[in-house]
């Protein structure tokens, strides 16, 4: 503790030097951890370009020449699935944002009887663990609604699962919008539907973008529900298909993993691109406190 007072007494030049050394150590330690964090994914890249003999004799080092054909072969296996996943994920994101913002608007702009109870009911649904509801939900969607193997069988339950949280977030944001804007619009003869589209939605673009980004990523990642609902690998979304390809690699590829791992790389690219573009939005959304409730 007395170290700080001592350094304060030192000549400025020496103080600067001391700071720099501790900074170098700090950066070095962070770099080591960064390398450790990224290492599995670096190995994924290394493994994705290995041929069968390279994989058998030199699995853990970089080997030349690269077998780029793995990527074209993997793309042939997953191309349809990636496109399908984009369709499903975009519909989920758009549907969730629409339904959640409609609900949030109704809850903030109207005097509804039992509003507090409704909000608590949303929270209560959110609290129930998915392991309790998974089995009845599966039976209901597959047997009673007959949605097995359909897009709506994935889309609608996923939206329903993410709704309470999204309503909560967007509602909090809507309540922060000043009432005077709505009053002015009402005086100008603006209908509620119009106010929703031309006041509430445009003003809450930041929260909608954040929620949309997170929904997009989590539904792209979702493996279990599409795996259960879709009945063959021709219908799987990408995460489910990757798991299936990995499980069947022992028979279809004779245990050779190069093509499958190239598939992992290809499947990671869309989210990576999205993340690099939306990095700032993502960081802001996570740290704004809105996700901590």
């Amino acid at each position, binding site marked *: *503790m*007395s170290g700080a007072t001592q350094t304060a007494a030192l000549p400025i030049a020496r103080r600067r030097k001391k700071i720099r050394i501790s*900074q170098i150590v*700090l950066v070095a*330690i*962070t770099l080591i*951890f*960064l390398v*450790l*964090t*990224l290492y*599995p*994914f670096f190995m994924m890249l290394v493994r994705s370009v290995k041929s069968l003999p390279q994989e058998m004799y030199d*699995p*853990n080092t970089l080997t030349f020449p690269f077998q780029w054909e793995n990527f074209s072969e993997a793309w042939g296996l997953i191309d349809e699935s990636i496109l399908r996943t984009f369709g499903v994920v975009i519909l989920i994101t758009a549907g969730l944002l629409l339904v*959640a913002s*409609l*609900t949030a608007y*109704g*809850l*903030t702009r*109207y*005097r509804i009887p039992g509003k*507090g109870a*409704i909000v608590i009911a*949303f929270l209560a*649904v959110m*609290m129930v*663990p998915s*392991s*309790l*509801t*998974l*089995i*009845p939900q*599966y039976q209901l*969607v597959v047997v009673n*609604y007959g949605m097995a193997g359909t897009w709506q069988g994935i889309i*609608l339950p996923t939206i*329903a699962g993410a*709704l309470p949280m999204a309503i909560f977030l967007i509602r*909090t*944001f809507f309540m*922060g919008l000043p009432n005077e804007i709505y009053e002015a619009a009402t005086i100008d003869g603006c209908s509620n539907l119009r106010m929703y589209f031309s006041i509430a939605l445009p003003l809450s673009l930041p929260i909608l973008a954040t929620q949309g980004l997170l929904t997009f990523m989590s539904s792209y990642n979702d*493996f279990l529900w599409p795996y259960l609902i879709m009945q063959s690998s021709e219908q799987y979304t990408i*995460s489910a298909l*990757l*798991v299936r390809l990995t499980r069947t690699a022992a028979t279809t590829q004779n245990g050779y993993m190069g093509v499958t*791992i190239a598939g992992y790389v290809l*499947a*990671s690219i869309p989210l*990576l691109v*999205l*993340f690099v573009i939306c*990095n700032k939005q993502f960081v802001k959304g*996570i*740290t*704004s406190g809105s996700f*901590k*409730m």
Partner: protein
Amino acid sequence: MREGIAEGVPAEAEESVQGAEAAASSPAVRRHGPLWKFCFKKYQIQGFLWLIPAAVLLVMFSVIPIVWAVIYSFTDWGFLSTVSFIGFENYGIVFGDSLFWNSLLNVILFTVCGLLLGNVAALALAEMLYNYASEKLASKMRFGFLLICAVPSVVSLLVWSKVIFLPTGGSATGVMNGLLGLFGASGTDWYLSNDPNIVRLAIVFTGFPFMGGTSFLIYYAGLQGINAEVIEASKLDGLGSFMRVFRLDFPYLRGTIKYFLVTGLIGGLQNYNIQVVLELSNEAAMVPGYYIYLTGLSSSFRNDEIDVLGGMGYACAMGMIMFLITLVLTILQNVFFKSKEDEA
């Protein structure tokens, strides 16, 4: 303290919520004439129209499954063609089911280890970045650690199982077994090992060094919220930067840490991601979520040690017990938080 970390946004918003609701529900309008007319004056029933889409979706896909789960936990729904009520029989079987209780112990172990390791790592990373002299460099590093978020979670699990923790006996050697080989040790089968402790070790260490992800971001943002004058004052009082971490930063982040521990505990108890993706159904790796999933949905899975009348009914009963456990934890957490906040 928590409000400070969250930049004041949720706290203020929360207050205004309660304020608005109190104003709406206060009996400011005096009742004249018939009840329905009164209702239309005081309330805006047409507001319900906005809630219809969400209500339909939630009832169809969330509420009915909850109701079914409760009802069917008292039946032999599953292997038989008819469904009949069997009272508390399923619950009685759960209490004698050693696999269920072992899986509960497993999930507690995984969750507690994961929470400790994950939060220590996230805090350490946030502290390191916070102490960077150059903000530019810190934001570059932050980007590097966040890159992991962009990798699909399934891919990340598959990479750990097919590249790092690859078992012996396959055509290729995994990274960990290769590393052990460098030290002259023989490799093991990790996730598929016969030794339960190695299986558990592999599961706990999946994701090492636990720094990628978003929780460090929230800690980092919390640290950035510390008033510069407070830090200046601590320097004048002769607090070194190492001591500052423990004396100033950690107390300041206490609310965030508590929040992560509580939500992590509740979420972790339900988690069975790694089990379902890697099909880890041996007893050492089993967790309740996956046991429920297998009992209710997998036709090939039977636990021969217990005599269950119906798979799905039994799965619902186990789900109910997990639900009760999380409910108790949530209530405890609320009581705990409330009393702590009153003290402060």
